[in-house]
């Protein structure tokens, strides 16, 4: 039995090594391949260092460039739950949900429109109808999600002058037990 188990063990290691080699070759030639060592951006959120992984092989900016952009952009534009609730209560603010459409359908801040930034490019969205001076608050899942920040940066680059992002996002809103909407925004 011991000899048999030893043989099984050696063969197991051997086949794992062989399949890993196949994996390396396929990953190398595949258009969907990834960097073997995951790159990440290091972002400071509320004094804590947060690593945001970049999974795809190509990225428009290097990690350093993106981290620098976050650093320059985030402190001035970030708003907390209290400020978000105040804007919601006062009205006149456009809320944008940057999460995937299926997440948006499950629940979102009442009145928020959905721009799933991971699924569609900003250039594909009809944003001419939006008032560039209107206050905009963008949110996504939670602190470890940077979709809201990405979208805020893109909108500001397009000339929107009053763009903010709510980093606590949907999770913090939900925990506050404030109003939520489900389904499409009518």
């Amino acid at each position, binding site marked *: *039995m011991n000899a*048999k*188990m030893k043989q*099984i*063990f050696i*063969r*197991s290691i051997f*086949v*794992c090594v*062989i*399949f*890993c080699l*196949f*994996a*390396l070759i*396929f*990953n190398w030639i*595949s258009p*969907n*391949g*990834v*960097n*073997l*060592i*995951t790159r*990440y951006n290091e972002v400071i959120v509320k004094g804590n260092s947060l*690593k945001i*992984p970049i*999974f*795809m*092989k190509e990225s428009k900016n290097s990690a350093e460039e993106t981290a620098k952009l976050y650093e320059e952009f985030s402190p001035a534009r970030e708003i907390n739950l209290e400020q978000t609730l105040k804007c919601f209560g006062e009205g006149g603010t456009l809320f944008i949900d940057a999460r995937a459409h*299926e997440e948006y359908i499950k629940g979102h801040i009442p009145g928020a429109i959905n721009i799933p930034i991971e699924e569609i490019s900003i250039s594909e969205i009809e944003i001419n109808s939006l008032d560039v001076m209107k206050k905009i608050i963008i949110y996504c899942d939670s602190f470890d999600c940077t979709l809201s920040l990405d979208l805020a940066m893109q909108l500001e680059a397009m000339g929107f002058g009053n763009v903010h992002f709510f980093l606590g996002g949907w999770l913090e809103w939900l925990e506050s037990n404030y109003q939520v909407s489900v389904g499409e925004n009518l």
Partner: protein
Amino acid sequence: MKNEKYYIIREIVRIVLGFIFLYASMDKIIFPARFAEVVYHYKVLPIEFLNLVAVFVPWIEAGLGIMLLLNIWVNSAAFVLCCFNILFIGLIYSAIARGLDIECGCFSLDPVASKVGWMRIFEDFLLLLSCTFLLWTGLQKEVQTKYIN
């Protein structure tokens, strides 16, 4: 008679498991970045190693599935799959224990189809039992001499 019964059950289990693991690996092989993101949400690995796991694990799963289907080194394939299933059960349990409402990444990368939960643990437990059965019957002398060699 007893051996024949084992043989038939073993063959069915071997082929079904082969198809299951091959199917489970397909999405992950095609979209490794998506799978890496699923692994990231478990929050058990250092970020640097996410892509390595996302590249290697699906290929090992697929390879072992093919080995089962083609009846090549079935004991070794079953042994590695047992280890994998124990690992998967541990990971899913830790996600449940930490209250994570995340995609399982078990059989497909469809976020709606496969959230972590007790059902996923039950499925993996069934797979673990099946792999253990393959390994156990493979180690029985009668089965080895009469049918495998």
